[in-house]
């Protein structure tokens, strides 16, 4: 038998025919098609029982009620809780994708100790012992008051525990980050003579006169404001936005008043003057005493519309029209607090805006400004102070005001840091404070830094020990409402998932740290766990809080309004806050812009960043907004790479031409330029505008009130 090509032909044909009449070909075709539709490497979420659990969003002070949708106990989606007094089913995009913060790549997975500049994974016992030894050594050296602690705010039991720890260690140096709430409280205390939290009854107002607030861009309790804004369509309430830039709030307002940046107080006082001159103010509620007369004289003489037109850039007729619109409204309200209200702002501006409200008699009235007295419903047991603590606490606070900026400036100015140990919880001063690079250098000078962050943020990167916290979806915590909403609510958040990593509840971390320090420090924290502490401290309201998940006061307790108002702070110390830098070297003014899609101290989630326009961030390039007229003078076009220089720093960004920004003013977005290497989605994108801005201390509050800085731009 000779094997030739016919044999091979026969073999091939035979094989083909054999396969064709067997199921192999047809089955393989089917299987291949199924395979192409179900790539084995594509993750498929597992199926299971759908449940909903309710908690409170802890991303900002808005305190929205959120429902977490779970599949077999695994959180998969977040929605707003229907019927919730703050957000009634609404949720912002950050709350909506808060699960991304749970799985954020920059989450800290275990306690860390820095050895020779490198992080070393540690057990909780090691990390706590390391921190306790450092704090103990400082106390033994008689420097207890050199221990400082920074928390975002001082409301609720977790900040309460940090404050208590600071005191028990023997230090006066507990500081909180700035918010507009601080300045509002200070202003009310100065004018009305009583301490109070501010609440704006925007839902019942028919005219909102907003001085630069990011009313629908994250100001106050963001979702509450979205709903107030949406309600304007049916209620017919008007919104007037005073702002140098056509923000989303300005674009959605009925009237946009583009006053020069930093002249909001001048405009408010000019309107006050018109109201008084024309007699269109509430004579019933304002006592015509010496203080008021002095105020009336001042605004009429020093803030005459003709003079203010030059300063604010708003013409006389427009100022008068604004004043009449405000006077004609049934329930007008004026609000202040720039952008999201994450900065302290100028006391003069807040006082001027408060004066406007006083003139229309809306203090403690429906649709007006409410002076609220909030009872925290907490009972703290007494503390034990040893000799080291007593010696420390009798010393004076390092800086007089509750200002982290001043504390950092003091560290910068000293050859050796007066702060020997710094505890940081829920704050990221190295990113959020102005002149962030100088703050970073100051924190580097502090010999021992303990961070309680959940994320490897800019401040935590400089820490010596990290005692990582559960993120908000992993923990129970009392959350008092801090936004300027006319409601008194303390909510109780609940863990939605077992902790993913080797982290601890920040309350438990404080208790363990105190226990590790033994003696009177440990004795001042008599609770086994944070849960036990929460129940004991919140005893007066615990039954309601634990059973219904929130204490909602049916009616808010209001502080009595004084008829005789003291406007003296506007008469003295009332210089306007100026942008830093000389005009000759820096002909432009740079202002920061808050964007609802970006966040402050905590880096925005990947989803949120993806929604940011490519005129704000494109790839890793940030942008500076310039009016085409300004750009023409500088011979700049859209997309040009430029160097923005301020007296504080410089950064390379791209040009975005925007007709909505005033000529001579340029703007950059807040919330970009995070130096977070682990987070590839957010880290290293754009520029942190706080590295270009510098703090300007308010003469009255002692807090940073900078709204911008002088700048120059050159093509790269």
């Amino acid at each position, binding site marked *: 038998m000779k094997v030739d090509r016919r044999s091979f032909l026969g073999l091939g044909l035979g094989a083909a025919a*054999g*396969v064709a009449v067997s199921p192999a070909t047809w089955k393989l075709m089917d299987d291949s098609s*199924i395979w192409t539709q179900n790539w084995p490497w594509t993750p498929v979420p597992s199926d299971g*029982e759908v449940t909903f659990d309710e908690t409170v969003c802890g991303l900002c002070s808005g305190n929205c009620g959120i429902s977490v949708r779970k599949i077999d106990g695994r959180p998969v989606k977040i929605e707003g809780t229907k019927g919730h007094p703050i957000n009634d089913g609404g949720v912002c995009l950050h709350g909506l994708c808060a699960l991304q913060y749970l799985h954020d790549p920059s989450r800290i997975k275990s306690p860390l100790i820095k050895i020779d500049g490198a992080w070393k994974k540690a057990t909780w016992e090691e990390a706590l012992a390391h921190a306790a030894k450092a704090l103990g050594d400082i106390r033994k050296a008689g420097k207890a008051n050199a221990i400082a602690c920074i928390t975002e705010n001082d409301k609720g039991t977790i900040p309460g525990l940090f404050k208590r720890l600071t005191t028990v260690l023997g230090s006066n140096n507990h500081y909180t980050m700035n918010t507009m709430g601080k300045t509002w409280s200070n202003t009310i205390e100065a004018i009305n003579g009583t301490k109070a939290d501010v609440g704006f009854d925007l839902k019942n107002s028919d005219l909102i006169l907003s001085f630069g607030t990011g009313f629908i861009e994250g100001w106050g309790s963001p979702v509450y404001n979205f709903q107030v804004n949406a309600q304007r369509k049916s209620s017919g309430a008007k919104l007037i936005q005073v702002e140098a830039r056509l923000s989303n709030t300005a674009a959605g307002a009925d009237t946009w008043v583009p006053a020069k940046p930093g002249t909001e107080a001048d405009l408010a006082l000019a309107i006050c003057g018109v109201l008084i001159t024309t007699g269109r103010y509430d004579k019933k509620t304002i006592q015509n005493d010496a203080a008021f007369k002095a105020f009336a004289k001042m605004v009429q003489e020093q803030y005459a519309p003709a003079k203010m037109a030059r300063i604010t850039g708003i013409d006389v007729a427009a100022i008068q029209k604004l004043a009449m619109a405000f006077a004609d409204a049934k329930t007008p309200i004026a609000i202040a607090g720039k952008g999201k209200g994450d900065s302290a702002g100028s006391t003069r501006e807040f006082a001027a805006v408060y004066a406007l409200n006083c003139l229309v008699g809306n203090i403690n009235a429906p649709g007006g400004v409410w002076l609220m007295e909030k009872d925290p419903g907490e009972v703290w047991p007494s503390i034990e102070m040893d000799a080291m603590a007593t010696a420390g606490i009798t010393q004076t606070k390092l800086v007089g005001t509750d200002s982290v900026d001043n504390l950092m400036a003091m560290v910068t100015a000293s050859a050796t840091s007066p702060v020997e140990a710094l505890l940081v919880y829920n704050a990221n001063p190295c990113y959020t404070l102005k002149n962030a690079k100088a703050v970073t250098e100051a924190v580097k000078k502090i010999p021992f830094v303990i961070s309680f962050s959940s994320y490897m943020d800019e401040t935590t990167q400089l820490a010596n020990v990290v005692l990582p916290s559960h993120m908000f979806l992993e923990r129970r915590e009392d959350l008092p409402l801090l936004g300027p909403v006319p409601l008194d609510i303390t909510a109780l958040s609940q863990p939605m998932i077992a902790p993913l990593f080797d982290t601890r509840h920040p309350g438990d971390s404080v208790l363990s740290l105190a226990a590790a320090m033994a003696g009177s420090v440990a004795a001042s924290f008599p609770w086994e766990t944070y849960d036990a502490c929460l129940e004991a401290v919140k005893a007066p309201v615990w039954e309601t809080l634990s059973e219904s998940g929130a204490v909602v006061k049916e009616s808010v307790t209001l502080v009595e309004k004084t008829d005789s108002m003291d406007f003296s702070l506007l008469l003295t110390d009332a210089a306007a806050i100026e942008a830093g830098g000389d005009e000759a070297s820096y002909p432009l003014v740079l202002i920061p812009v808050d964007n609802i899609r970006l966040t402050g101290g905590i880096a925005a989630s990947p989803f949120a960043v993806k929604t940011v326009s490519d005129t704000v961030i494109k790839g890793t390039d940030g942008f500076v907004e310039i009016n085409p007229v300004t750009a023409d003078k500088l011979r700049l076009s859209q997309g040009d790479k430029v160097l923005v220089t301020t007296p504080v720093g410089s950064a390379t960004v791209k040009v975005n031409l925007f007709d909505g920004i005033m000529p001579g003013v340029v703007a950059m977005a807040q919330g970009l330029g995070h130096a977070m290497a682990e987070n590839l989605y957010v880290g290293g994108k754009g520029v942190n505008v706080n590295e270009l801005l510098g703090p300007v201390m308010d003469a009255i509050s002692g807090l940073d009130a900078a709204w911008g800085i002088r700048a120059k731009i050159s093509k790269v």
Partner: protein
Amino acid sequence: MSKLEEKTENGSTDSLETGVSEEQKAEGDSGVGTGVLFFIAAFAVCFLSGWLLFPNLLYSKKEQPFSFNHALHVEEMGGCDSCHYFREDGSFAGIPKLAQCVDCHAEVMGDTEDEAIFVAEYVEKEKEVPWLIYSEQPDCVFFSHSAHVVGAQMDCVSCHGHIGESTTMKPYEENRITGYSRDIWGKNAWGFKKNSWDRMKMDDCAECHEKETGSKGACFQCHK
């Protein structure tokens, strides 16, 4: 001079071809015969491989974590829905979770080895049993049990057969290409079926839909 050149010298190439064909003529029958033989051999090998070897190569056999006696449970518990129930929201619970089993099996109840494994390995360790699901459809298919069982009043047997009467679990045969169970295509390699529960392919869905509703249905009804 080569043979070819020599022949070309002598005349046209026609004479060359004629010469070759004459040579082959003598072996002609045997050449075709070899081809046919090879054809038949290759056909037989491939045909038999396609039928017998291929299905065995295509599927890998996996054993369930332990065997489960459906018949016994049906007898003790009642119908299928006592374990495979609809949740309050109408979704189908599918294979019971450990929490349900623990209601009865917190401790060993019977004397079978399988139950002992279940209690020791899963109940005591609070670990879900990694059951291999014979009827798991690819992820690109959306299927609502509620629409079929509650809406159309179909019984479980129509699709799942008489699994409720089984006393042991057969090995799970996983398709090496798709990763899905052999029961979706059916035991028969050609996909022939005798009963409605022998296959769970799209054509089977369409066949029943056409019969019951007059339409095979639209793509997006299932492929959402």
